[in-house]
């Protein structure tokens, strides 16, 4: 049986400052080594001062994943020499001498399968190494410490995944979860990084590192399972090792074997006093947490009567569910949900496109009201919606410029339908026996009115005129 476990690193990108100093947590796009201070550069005499908000955000992740939070939370030093590590130790958490990391023993259910979380720990991100040329052939390694000290949460699962598909689903759930909690933007470059451990029946455990994206982890795992299985089938031993994902060649490559077993010589970090977490504090945190995705979906279905499928799509996208929650009323909820999921999500599906949307919340609500009140067809509604988010104008402004008001005046419609009947004689003949032909005629009328004809009134008139004929 295949066993897969994951180690996920997730930056708390929603925090203003780093984990142990006041430098910006958002290091992206800054000139190298411009976002550093004595603390992030590990200068002699500097001391880490814990960002308490980071502890709260990490605790929220732990709670959302059903983890236990210990009463005494503390930090450890993980000692090893590496150029991206300014102090040559990383301040992290460690459970070997009793649970003191922010979370342990949680679980997540995906498609009826329970994935157990081993632990969740808060730690500092190291700096970044920049190579001149490829990392194998480089003559020069540059170090940028802008990232050093960024708050990072490490999540470790038990080896409970049976296949790469489950991994993908889990990662999507996790990304949605941290986004919904407002602790991280998982889609920022490098904000969420995944390492995998995988073994097949009869083989040893292999660690896969250096996987750039969520999509690639599924590919890397698939490759690795196939590789290991074919070794086992040929009775060749699978070596316990670390392999790197080669993005260009889409294969895993054995990382140069470690000369010796790393001994991290963990040591309590006494510069950061132990944090006492009372049960009361945990309850307060729970109250501050936004509703979970499951709760949100449930609310959409049960309280607002939104169809389950629409509720699912809407609730798992934080941007659009926030928009929905800001715009809908009890009476137009279904229509707002429809507008967002069928018209808007398809057009603005990337982060850039979303950020370009100019949204007046009231305009969206007014638009949905107009559709509910039959003052606008759904078709016109879509046109109006796209104009609304392009211009940021109010609903009435858009309507007056677009001339979209509903055509339900019977005389006008009869005249237009008459014209269509002349043009489409064949369809009119078939209409008596073939419902598709009726729909075709309705479509022609819609086109002539640029979608403004009220569909139900149009259908009634057509039926009446055909039976008269």
């Amino acid at each position, binding site marked *: 049986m295949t066993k897969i476990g994951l180690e996920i690193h997730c930056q708390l990108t929603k925090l203003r400052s780093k984990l142990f100093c006041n430098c910006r947590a958002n290091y992206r796009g800054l000139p190298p080594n411009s976002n550093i201070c*004595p603390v992030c*550069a*590990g*200068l*002699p*005499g*500097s*001391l*880490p*001062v*814990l960002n308490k908000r980071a502890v709260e955000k990490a605790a929220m992740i732990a709670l959302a994943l059903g983890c236990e939070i210990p009463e005494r939370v503390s930090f450890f*030093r993980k*000692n090893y*020499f*590496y*150029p991206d590590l*300014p*102090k*040559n*130790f990383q301040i992290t958490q460690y459970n070997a*001498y009793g649970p003191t990391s922010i979370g342990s023993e949680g679980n997540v259910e995906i498609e009826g399968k329970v994935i157990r979380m081993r632990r969740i720990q808060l730690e500092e991100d190291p700096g970044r190494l920049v190579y001149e040329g490829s990392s194998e052939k480089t003559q020069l*390694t540059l*170090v940028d410490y802008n990232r050093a000290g960024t708050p990072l949460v490490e999540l470790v699962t038990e080896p409970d995944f049976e296949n790469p598909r489950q991994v993908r689903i889990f990662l999507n759930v996790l990304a949605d979860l941290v986004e919904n909690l407002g602790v991280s933007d998982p889609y920022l470059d490098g904000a969420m990084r995944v390492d995998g451990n995988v073994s097949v029946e009869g083989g040893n455990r292999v660690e896969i590192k250096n996987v750039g994206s969520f999509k690639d982890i599924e590919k890397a795992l698939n490759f690795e399972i196939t590789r290991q299985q074919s070794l086992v089938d040929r009775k060749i031993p699978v070596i316990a090792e670390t392999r790197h994902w080669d993005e260009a060649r889409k294969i895993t490559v054995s990382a140069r074997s470690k000369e010796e077993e790393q*001994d991290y*010589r*963990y*040591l*309590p970090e*006494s*510069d*950061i*006093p132990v944090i006492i977490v009372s049960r009361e504090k945990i309850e307060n945190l729970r109250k501050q947490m936004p509703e979970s995705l499951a709760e949100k979906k449930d609310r959409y279905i049960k309280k607002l009567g939104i169809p389950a499928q629409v509720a699912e799509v809407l609730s798992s996208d934080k941007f659009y569910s926030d928009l929905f929650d800001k715009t809908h009323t009890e009476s137009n909820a279904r229509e707002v949900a429809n507008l967002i999921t069928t018209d808007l999500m398809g057009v603005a599906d990337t982060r850039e496109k979303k950020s370009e949307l100019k949204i007046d919340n009231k305009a969206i609500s007014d638009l949905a009201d107009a559709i509910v009140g039959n003052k606008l067809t759904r078709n016109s509604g879509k046109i109006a919606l796209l104009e609304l988010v392009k211009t940021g104008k109010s609903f009435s402004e858009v309507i007056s410029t677009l001339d979209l008001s509903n055509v339900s005046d019977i005389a006008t419609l009869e005249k237009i339908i008459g014209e269509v009947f002349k043009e489409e004689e064949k369809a009119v003949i078939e209409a008596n026996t073939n419902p598709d032909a009726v729909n075709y005629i309705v479509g022609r009328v819609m086109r002539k009115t640029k979608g403004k004809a009220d569909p139900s009134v149009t259908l009634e008139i057509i039926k009446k005129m055909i039976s008269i004929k």
Partner: protein
Amino acid sequence: MKIEISATEYLSLVRSGSISVEEFIAKTLDHVHSIEPRLRAYITLDADNALDKARSIDKKMRTGEKVGSLLGIPVSIKDNICTAGIRTTCASRMLENFVAPYDATVVSRLRQEDAIIIGKVNLDEFAMGSTTEFSCFGPSRNPWNTDYVPGGSSGGSGVSVSAYECIISLGSDTGGSVRSPASFCSVVGLKPTYGLVSRYGLISYSNSIEQIGPLGRKVEDVALALNVIAGHDLRDGTTSSGAKIDYVADIGDGIEGKKIGIIKQMMGEGVDGEVISATESAIARFQELGAECVPISLDAVEHSVAAYYTIASAEASSNLARYDNLRYGYDFASEGYEFKAYVSKARSRFGPEVTRRMLLGAFVLSAGYYGKYYLKAQKVREMIKSQIENAFNSVDFLVTPTMPILPFRIGEKIEDPLTLYLLDINTITANLAGIPAISVPMAFSSSNLPIGIQILANSFEEKDLLKAAYALEQTTNLPGVKI
């Protein structure tokens, strides 16, 4: 004009206009220049800036501008405490030319009160040692006999205060590093409660244990310095947020009715006879002042040296890992080196004692040994803490000799690390327990070498501790160094 005056005397002379700050600083600097070839207390002098600063304070006083409460008092700073603009070497070839871009919190607090930093003073490399012999700049010498060690690791602090090269000095005390030179140089040295004084800018050796502490020729001077440097600091998460206390006010209250415990384990085997009799006379003085003295037993002390060196070395091995010469350090062409080879080559500049402790520390933390050494040492620490806590349920202070023996000759014990470690036996208890302790000059031996008495109090009881030290000081009438 005399420079052999206390801080209190200095302040009143400057305030009354009897002397100018510039005069005093200039005279102090002249004295430093003439005496330094014999004592070697300073690593780096900042004479020009000191004089500029003195003139600017004089000017402020003339024009009636606001002046900080220390009125240009000359201070020396141990060279493991960061000073912006003056190099901070830790007496190590690894940091020979390191200039920190910032002031330690204690330094900025001193500057804010218009103290004048004369320079940076010698220490054992990275504060590891008790004689100041392990400095890459060579040993400092005891002003009472220049063939003798001044104690350590804050040897430069003890020497500079004792020989009038400054009025107040800041040292750091990890296992007795402020009190040992205070005792050997016949000055007052205080190790505050862990968390009372900010460590921001103190280059870490053993960060769960060490504290910055002041040295002065008088107890009141030390109290005055503590007034300025103590208190919560946003840059050090281990500082306590207690209310500001004035340690100078009511310092002459006396100790009548107080109860003092004499730690039995520090008065027996291995203690020099003259040290014992000096301690006994201190006990007699305390009794004359109306305190009650009782013997007290702290048997966990037996293991304290082993526990201390285990914990301190473990922390040192981690704290000193950052010195890889990548971000600062000395000139060394890295080309042609693979990273690990470069780091081990670059790190070969540490001296023998630092290397010994880093190796020892890495060993006690390594897989499989953590429980056997480090965890056990932490248990001893807890045991000492609880025995101390117990003791303070029945007494107000504990008293011991500061050092078990008299100052000794330079070079005499340098080949024998274990003997040197054992000299810390009386001082490390306060470090492991986190409590405050002070060394007060008590007597001179027949060979005219200083003997100090150590008084310990419960956590954050510095005010009472200083009162007790002051009361004892009033009963002694000891000479200063002849210059």
